[in-house]
Structures are given as C-alpha cells and as structure tokens.
C-alpha cells in the first residue's frame, strides 16, 4: 500500500480549469491521508512541470504519483517516464482523465464536472495506493517486416527498410507490382510517368538480397504478436514458369488463342482482357500471368507456349516477422449508376478512365469512335458528399483533374476543358498547375453544395448544367463530348486482410492512426503500422512520405532484437486454483498452461504469450485469476470511491 502519493492537477492551459474548479479539487484531495502533496499545474506535460514532479518525488520521497490531466492515450508514457527518471517505478504512476471524460464532456455543467473530477481523482488515488512496481517484459524480436501491398509506398518502404538492415517480405495481391501508380501516365508534379517510377523502384528492389517479393500473395492468417508475428501467406499460382525466358511471340499468340475475355480492370473496363495477360510490356515481374479466377484451363495457351504450366498449385508460406506494415492503398470511388449520368449516358466516364484513355489513344482523343473536343470535368464525385456517406475531401483529385486537363491540351489539338468544381483545392505548390490550366484557357465554374452540377442528355447531346457562383449564380450550360467524373478515393473494397489484422477503422472508413500528429503511422495494434492512402486519401509524394516515416518507426521498433512489453499480465492464485480448464479454453493466445504443484493441478500463465486482455478473469469459478493493474482490490476500491 502506498502512503506517500503525489497528486498533480493539470489546468491544461484552460481546458480543464475553465470548467473544473481545480482549486476545490486540490483542496479536497489534499485532505486524503495517503496524499503527501497535491498541486495545481498549468501544463503538467511541460518540461518545467515534469522537472518539478521529479524534484518532488525525490525530495518528498513519494511512493506513487497521480496526474489528473488529459486522456492517458496522450501522456501515459510521458509521465511514466517522469516517474522513472525520478527513480520511481513507472507503474506507480496513475493518470486520471480529467479533460476528455470530465471538463470537456461536462463543459455544460461546471459544478457537476467539479464534483465528478473530485471523485475521479480520488479513484485514481485509490488505484495508486494499490499499484505495484512492475518491470516491463522484454521479448525477442526478429528483424524482419512484412510489407503488405507493393504499390509505390510499399516498394519505397521495402527499399528503405532493407537499407536499414531489415529482412523484408513484400506481398502484393496482384500478379504485378506498382499498384495504382502504374496505371497513370505522367504524374504531377514531375511529369515522370507512373510506369517509369515503378520500374525504377522494381529494379532497385531486385538488387537487394534482403527483400523478397511475393506476387499474387495474400495474408491468410496471423498469429503471434509484435516482434514475432507468424504469418501464413497464400500464394496464387501464376501458371507461368518462374525462371523461364519467355518467347514473346509465343506469348502474343497465347493471348490471341485464349478464349476468355472480360472487362480489363487495369483499364477500368475500357478494353477487354484475356485470362493470360500482362497489362503493359514493361510491367514487372517481367513474365506474364494467368488470372486463376478467370482461366478455364482450356490448355490452348499451354499448347502454344511451353513455359505455361497450368498445373501450378496454390502455395502457403509461413513468414516470421517482427512487424507488419500495411500499404494497401485505396480505390477510386465507383460512381453509382446514374450519378451524374454514369453508365446511363454513354459519354460519361471517370477521371481514372480518362487517364487510361489518353494512354490508349495517343494521337486523336476519341471515345466510342467520336472525336472529343469539349471535355467537362465534374469535381468531387464521391467526395464531400452532403448527403452521401463520403463526407471527406479526397485531396488529390482537384490537382489530378487539372493536371490531366493540361495533358489533354498538350497532347491533342483543339481541346476545350470545362471544370465544374466545388472550389478548387490545389493546395501548396500545386496551385501552379491551377494557374497554368487557367492560363491555357481552361474554364472553371463553381457550384455550392445546395445546387450541384447536373448532367443531362437532350437529343443525343450531353449537357452539363451549373448554377455558377462565379457568374453571379447564373445558370450556364455546356454541351460536352466527354463528361469526366473526378472521382475521389475510397478504401479498398476487398479488405479481407483486415478481417485478420483488425486495424481500427475511422469515420471515413480508412484505417485509423493512433494520433495524427503524435503517432501518425502507428495503430493501436502493437507492431502493425499503416502508411499511404490506406490511411486517408493522399497523393503519391505524401504516400511515399508516410511510407518512409513508417519505415523508420518499424526499424526502431524491431531492429534492436528485443521489444519491451507492458507487464499487464494475468496472475493465478495457486492456493485457490483447482484446474478446471475454463481459462485455458477461452484464452485466445495460448497463454495458459497446466502444471502440477504440491500434488494438484493448477493453471500457469505463459508470460510471453499473455496479452493481458483479461478474458480469463470472469470465467474462473473460484476467482483465482487477477489481472495486474486491474485486481479486485483496485477495481473495487475505485468503485467505492466513485459511488460515494
């Protein structure tokens, strides 16, 4: 039992003190017997305040401290550190959440908030009284990473991690690397093509011995934990012999004879694809693939080309990794049928389709055999929806559409671009592109949320209508040869991997980081990091930045050979335990074993496996399990204080 507890009540500037009478809290808390001192601070987290706490611990010989400030999610580790520096065990530190769960939540009722604050601090003191000194558990860590998704972010992260000395397993669900970037031609702002960037990265990756690339690979299951994940990876057969020197003429013939034809996802359905394919000649890995989902195994191709092997089977690999980095990217929003005439009016396509179209028709821009002169871009399709479900801004689309419009004018003669925007968001240096497109004669319109742009078809003409606020709300119409829906980003539709990894998902359905500023690439699941557009819509540079950022976090996590873990474990009371196996059967981590002691069977906790979830606690018929930090005495004494 701790008897010299130091209590610090943080004003958090005014965040707490505006609603909670901190003086009163301090006054009441100070009367508590176990409290050796209690103080009010402006910012408990400030360096000076931290030093003051250290000084107090040392001079006043405090045996536990309570800081009543913000959510422990922000500063638990900050103050544990403070305790440690003062020579106090970090687990003798208790944080009370006065801000998120008191002052802010009850800013409508300051007297009640103060009352609640007093109880919360008292409960914290109770908890501190029973707190034990704990030492973190150190577990070994393998210096290897599984990077999921070989798009530009994943590839960049793989290279950097390999540079820093980690073993990298790069998994790609598709048969070819490059992700979305390989689908785009010139990229803003350098005008390098996506294909060039990807082949540059691919060639670099091939130079590393410590990067292993798996294509057609998906995670099937995960076990273990940070430092030591066991990951089962399912690898789809490619049906082309891996080390073959492929005869390209034969490959072309094989493609010709393939009877299967379906909408080509790489070209967003603008063209047809065969079951045996390569999206473009310089795609990597060099050898083609046969799409297992569509192939009918008619053997026609293998008759032509001996390098084709339709007998390849699905493989399952076991990978051992210290950490998992998700760079699974995003998908373009697929407009609903009829949304701005999509799939109802035949010359309405998406921006992504247009980008493919430019590449497919390098000389004259045609669509459905009609020459295109007037192109109408409709912005914010699937983003910033007032009633729809995607309320967020997709960030990259304004610039992407404008950049594409510039490309159109540069590549083809007599193109007129019309931009139906909801306010152009070419932030930062991208503003220059907006400038350039205006100067080249592109016409911009802007509508407000309450009267969106409309696309209608009249007598075979496709008309785009807008109430243009730039022209005093005048209603304007453009007859367009091609309507381009500037679609935003949505999370990957097929997100089977998260059924396994369980990374929290945010309001916008993208993966959620712990904190956008403090820990922007980490998730609440230890050892699982996120980067790139699986986290939020980002452009390429931003994706790469976050991927690289994640790389350095991964490296500092796993490269030291060991990872320190929370010592929050279950404990078995040997006396009362009479082995019944209930706890073992519910434990998701195989952390409970049976042992013989003094002639009876009792349960025992395997420390490196125990995650401290406490699932075993309620199932024990004899109440023989306590969770460290959440023992009956701690919880019940807190309940007593809160209830009175």
């Amino acid at each position: 039992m701790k008897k010299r507890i130091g209590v610090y009540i943080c004003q958090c500037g005014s965040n707490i003190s505006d609603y909670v009478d901190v003086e009163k809290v301090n006054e009441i808390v100070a009367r508590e017997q176990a409290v050796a001192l209690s103080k009010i601070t402006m910012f408990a987290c400030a360096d000076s305040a931290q030093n003051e706490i250290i000084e107090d611990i040392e001079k006043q010989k405090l045996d536990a401290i309570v800081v009543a400030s913000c959510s422990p999610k922000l500063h638990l580790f900050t103050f544990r550190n403070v305790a440690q520096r003062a020579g106090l065990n970090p687990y003798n530190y208790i944080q009370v959440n006065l801000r998120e769960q008191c002052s802010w939540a009850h800013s409508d009722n300051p007297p009640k908030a103060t009352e609640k604050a007093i109880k919360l601090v008292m409960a914290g003191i109770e908890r501190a009284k029973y707190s034990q000194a704990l030492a973190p558990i150190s577990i070994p860590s393998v210096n290897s990473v599984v990077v999921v998704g070989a798009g530009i972010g994943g590839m960049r992260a793989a290279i950097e991690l390999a540079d820093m000395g980690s073993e990298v397993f790069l998994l790609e669900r598709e048969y070819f690397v490059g992700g979305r970037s390989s689908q785009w031609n010139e990229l803003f702002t350098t005008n390098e093509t996506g294909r060039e960037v990807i082949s540059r990265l691919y060639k670099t990756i091939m130079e590393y011995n410590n990067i292993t690339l798996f294509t057609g690979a998906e995670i099937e299951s995960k076990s273990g934990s940070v430092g030591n994940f066991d990951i089962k990876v399912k690898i789809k057969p490619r049906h082309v012999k891996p080390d073959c020197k492929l005869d390209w003429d034969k490959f072309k013939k094989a493609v010709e004879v393939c009877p299967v034809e379906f909408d080509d996802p790489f070209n967003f359905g603008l063209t047809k694809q065969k079951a045996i394919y390569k999206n473009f000649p310089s795609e990597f890995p060099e050898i083609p693939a046969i799409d297992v989902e569509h192939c009918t195994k008619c053997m026609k191709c293998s008759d032509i080309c001996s390098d084709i092997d339709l007998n390849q089977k699905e493989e399952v690999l076991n990978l051992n990794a210290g950490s998992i980095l998700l760079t699974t990217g995003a998908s373009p929003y697929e407009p609903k049928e009829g949304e701005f005439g999509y799939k109802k009016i035949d010359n309405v396509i998406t921006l992504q389709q247009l980008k493919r179209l430019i590449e497919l028709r390098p000389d004259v821009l045609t669509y459905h055999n009609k020459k295109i002169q007037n192109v109408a871009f409709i912005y914010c399709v699937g983003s910033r929806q007032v009633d729809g479900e995607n309320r967020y801004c997709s960030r990259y689309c304004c610039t992407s559409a404008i950049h594409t419009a510039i490309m159109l004018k540069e590549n083809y003669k007599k193109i007129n671009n019309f931009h139906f925007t909801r306010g152009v968001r070419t932030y930062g240096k991208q503003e220059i592109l907006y400038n350039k497109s205006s100067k080249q004669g592109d016409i911009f319109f802007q509508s407000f949320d309450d009267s969106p742009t409309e696309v209608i078809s009249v007598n075979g003409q496709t008309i785009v209508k807008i109430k243009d606020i730039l022209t005093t709300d005048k209603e304007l119409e453009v007859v367009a040869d091609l309507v381009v829906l500037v679609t935003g980003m949505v999370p990957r539709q097929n997100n089977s991997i998260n059924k396994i990894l369980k990374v929290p998902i945010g309001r916008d359905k993208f993966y959620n980081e712990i904190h956008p500023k403090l820990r922007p690439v980490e998730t609440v699941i230890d050892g699982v990091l996120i980067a790139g557009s699986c986290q939020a819509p980002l452009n390429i540079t931003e994706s790469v930045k976050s991927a690289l950022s994640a790389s350095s976090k991964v490296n500092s996590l796993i490269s030291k050979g060991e990872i320190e873990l929370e010592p929050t474990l279950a404990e078995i009371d040997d006396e009362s335990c009479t082995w019944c196996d209930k706890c073992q059967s519910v434990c998701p981590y195989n952390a409970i074993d049976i042992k013989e002691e003094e002639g009876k069977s009792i349960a025992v906790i395997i420390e490196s496996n125990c995650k401290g979830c406490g699932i075993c606690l309620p199932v024990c018929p004899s109440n023989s399990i306590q969770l460290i930090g959440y023992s009956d005495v701690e919880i019940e004494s807190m309940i007593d204080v809160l209830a009175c």
Partner: protein
Amino acid sequence: MEEVITAPKILVFSTEKISDPAIDLAGLLKKHYPPTVYTINIPCSSAVKSRWVLHAFEAGFDGVFIAADGTDCAYSETCTERTGELVKKTHELMKDRNIDPIRLKMAAICSVCSEPFVKHMKNFVAALSN
C-alpha cells in the same frame, strides 16, 4: 439544474483501445452526457468480473454499463460472445439478489462511436429514472 443532482449514477466499464477512445471523442466534440457517468477502463470488455458489477450495486451505483469492444476487439473474435455470457451470468446473480436486471446493460461501442455512447447514456439514465 436540480434534476441532475438526483440523476442515477452509472458506472461504465470501457475498454482501453476501443470504447474508451469513443468516450474521449465524445468529450473532444463536447457531446454532453450526464456527469453522473463514471468510467473505469479495462483492457477488454470480456474481462469484467460479475463481482465487480455486484460490488458496484452494493456501493450505490444505480446502473452498470459495459461498453463492449464488439467485433472490433483486438484480442479475440469471441469477445462479443464472452461479454454476452458474463452479462448473462451476472444477470442471474442479480436475480438471486433481487436486483432489477435492467440495471446492467451492455452495448458494443466502437472506437469512434461517441454519438451512440452519448445516446446510450441518456437512454440508460432515462430508463433508470423510471
């Protein structure tokens, strides 16, 4: 606000990674709920012991709310099931002690479910006041 003073006292068991962030978020967004709601956080909702719940009633709480991880639980897929079982078990124990089962409630609160949380709290308070 006189009626608040007599408002029922509620103990919430929240979970560190899922429902507690939602409760934090409610505060961050200044979504108000009754100040007689007190939270104790634990790692996982399937770790709540029946004796804690019963202790809470004995100590004077009018209601106990388990803000469960639901399917978001990072520990176990069986979390919902487990939490459900312990609630069922506790309900039985409550019946033995003549405690109205309405006083223990459980609902899954995801990590951004601040709005549902506030709604649950208001409804629970209303139900307990009757």
